[in-house]
């Protein structure tokens, strides 16, 4: 009898001790140290055709870094499906990499956790100064008025990719510059029995990128200046409706695309099943799928007026990858050195060429590799007509709730149910109500 009580007491004590230990989760809140100066752990995002491709691209560069500094970098390419979860659990526990790639739209959300090293003037000084980077890319590194949470690494922008032969067959002379033209061209292509425009109706991030740009074109923002969600303004509703109507009303997006979530639309385009695609820096993707560069053309994404620019003529989000340093790093100096290395002109040229992205570093952009027609369009877009997604702490929730709303609207459109201003507004209202209360 006594032994049971003792055992029970022991068990309870043990559990409390363990619970208490866990409650201190991530309490190693220090601002990083230099305990292990000879190694770094680096989480790279999946930029190439597969995880192995990324390793082949990055490993030689990391070896170069090791030769220069004597610091060994342990690379792990984390699939997109796991990256955010891994970062979250690392944040919660304090056990994470030293340096990591983040999707640039996550910057403000991750900044709010306090897990990433702020890039103040001193830290920027160590990598050559803030001025080395393109302004638009810096616009997507964290909330305004705060030190950036990360440094731009690769920049990407949306463009209209079109199949030259299919355009010629349908008698279209030049790529559409306005949405009306795009719809008209789409009808001509459909008349030839082909699919006009590809989209990823079930991919939340893609949905967000597009409706954000449509929002800009309607002069509407998803967040107020104070950072409160504002999803049901007339402009936002019209923007979301215009995007979904490309399938529902204008019939240029085939209904089957409503269930796409794994970049099937890119593969459809590469295989000549659809004539147009709105995508970010797709060249490397298309090439690896066997579509050569002379088969397709690249043009700016249409805007209502026909001339991309600022304000309501924005035609792309600032897409890209940022490089961040985890605050709990055990090799702060090494991590900074590594960021400096990765953002150096030479590395920027190599890496951005490999991934068909645009360097966010001004001095690297002038390289001939980034002046091809394809890259010129992307570069111009980034420089002149791209806007950063809202830099608010709730960005991640916004992607989920509004992205899901658009997904559901696409499902309605695909099933032939009407998509009306009211139904769009209702979905967006529901999304807004699911945002965290302030």
């Amino acid at each position, binding site marked *: 009898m006594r032994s049971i009580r003792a055992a029970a007491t022991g068990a309870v004590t043990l559990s409390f001790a*363990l619970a208490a230990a866990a409650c201190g989760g991530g309490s190693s809140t220090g601002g990083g140290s230099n305990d292990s100066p000879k190694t770094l752990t680096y989480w790279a995002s999946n930029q190439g055709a597969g995880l192995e491709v990324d390793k082949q691209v990055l490993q030689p560069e990391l070896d170069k870094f090791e030769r220069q500094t004597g610091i060994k970098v342990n690379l792990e390419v984390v699939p997109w499906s796991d990256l955010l979860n891994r970062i979250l659990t690392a944040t919660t526990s304090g056990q994470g990499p030293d340096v990591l790639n983040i999707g640039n739209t996550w910057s403000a959300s991750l900044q709010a956790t306090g897990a990433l090293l702020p890039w103040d003037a001193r830290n920027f000084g160590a990598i050559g100064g803030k001025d080395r980077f393109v302004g638009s890319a810096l616009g997507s590194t964290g909330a305004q008025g705060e030190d950036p949470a990360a440094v731009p690494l690769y920049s990407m922008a949306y463009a209209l990719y079109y199949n030259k032969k299919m355009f010629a067959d349908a008698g279209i002379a030049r790529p559409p510059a306005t949405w009306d033209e795009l719809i008209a061209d789409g009808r001509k292509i459909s008349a030839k029995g082909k699919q006009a425009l590809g989209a990823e109706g079930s991919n939340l991030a893609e949905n967000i990128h597009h409706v954000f740009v449509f929002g800009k074109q309607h002069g509407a923002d998803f967040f107020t200046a104070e950072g409160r969600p504002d999803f049901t303004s007339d402009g936002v509703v019209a923007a979301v409706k215009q995007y979904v109507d490309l399938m529902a009303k204008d019939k240029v997006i085939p209904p089957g695309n409503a269930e796409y979530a794994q970049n099937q639309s890119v593969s459809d385009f590469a295989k000549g099943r659809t004539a147009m695609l709105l995508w970010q820096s797709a060249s490397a993707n298309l090439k690896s799928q066997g579509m050569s560069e002379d088969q397709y053309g690249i043009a700016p994404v249409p805007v209502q007026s026909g001339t991309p620019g600022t304000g309501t003529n924005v035609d792309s989000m600032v897409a890209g990858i940022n490089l961040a340093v985890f605050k709990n790093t055990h090799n702060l100096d090494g991590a900074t050195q590594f960021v400096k290395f990765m953002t150096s002109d030479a590395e920027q040229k190599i890496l951005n060429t490999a991934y068909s992205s645009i360097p966010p570093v001004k001095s690297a952009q002038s390289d001939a590799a980034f002046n091809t027609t394809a890259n010129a369009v992307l570069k111009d877009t980034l420089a002149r007509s791209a806007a950063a997604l809202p830099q608010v702490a709730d960005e991640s929730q916004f992607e989920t709730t509004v992205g899901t709303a658009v997904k559901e609207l696409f499902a309605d459109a695909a099933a032939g149910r009407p998509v009306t201003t009211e139904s769009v507004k209702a979905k967006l209202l529901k999304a807004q109500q699911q945002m965290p209360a302030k």
Partner: protein
Amino acid sequence: MPSTSYAPRSPMAPPRSFLWSRRIFLTLLTGFVLVPVYVMVSSSLKPLADVSGKFRWLPSGLTIRPYIDIWSTVPLAKYFVNSLIVAGSATVCSVGIAVFAAYAVSRYDFRGKRVFTVTVLSTQMFPGILFLLPLFLLYVNIGNATGLALFGSRGGLILTYLTFSLPFSIWMLIGYFDSVPRDLDEAALVDGCGPLGALIRIVVPAAIPGIVAVAVYAFMTAWGEVLFASVMTNDTTRTLAVGLQGYSTLNDVYWNQIMAASLVVSVPVVAGFLLLQRYLVTGLTAGAVK
């Protein structure tokens, strides 16, 4: 595979209606089971352009290319080894621990027995998502305090999975052990075996079919788990359950490679399963204690 022969259930031949119902039902069921398997096999032999196009029952051209490419698209061999180690160790440990616990519950009366069994049973209801993050924190903190690398290592995953299958294993084994007549352990005790000797020499052999069933269950639990593996593994310890997702890349979904890789990794498991299943059935009859 020859079927084990034992006497039919009833001495009379089953009526015609039963035979027909059997034929129809089993044919339909076989179709239901086989269609996806056929799709896997046929798709794994098609070129990518074929699998990402309209479905066709018969492949227009056959290629073994996917079976070569799977090894380079993702480090499949490494994931496979990881999965085998993790699932294998979790199974062995889970069964071992469950045998002891079930024996205690089956053969002894002690205080707290009911509390123990009810608690163990109730853990089956825990939604995984509720303790994913806490468990992760716990592992990290134990790691920080003791230097044991639980998080990110195979060890942590083994520990997690073995505990996942433990409750049901204990629960099932209690039933099996209860059905082994106590006279047998008594005899062993009289012969001078200790209680553990009786367990290992008498009870365990008599309950082999149950133990095999439990082992199969424990293995499959660890083999297929996605949620914890996605958070608790890294590059070097990633298991198949998450690793297979690598075939759906930023570029394209390599359907033919997904199917090929799924088949390659499933064949050994299915084979092992079938071997055990025969054994399990013969064990059920031969191991019977009358």
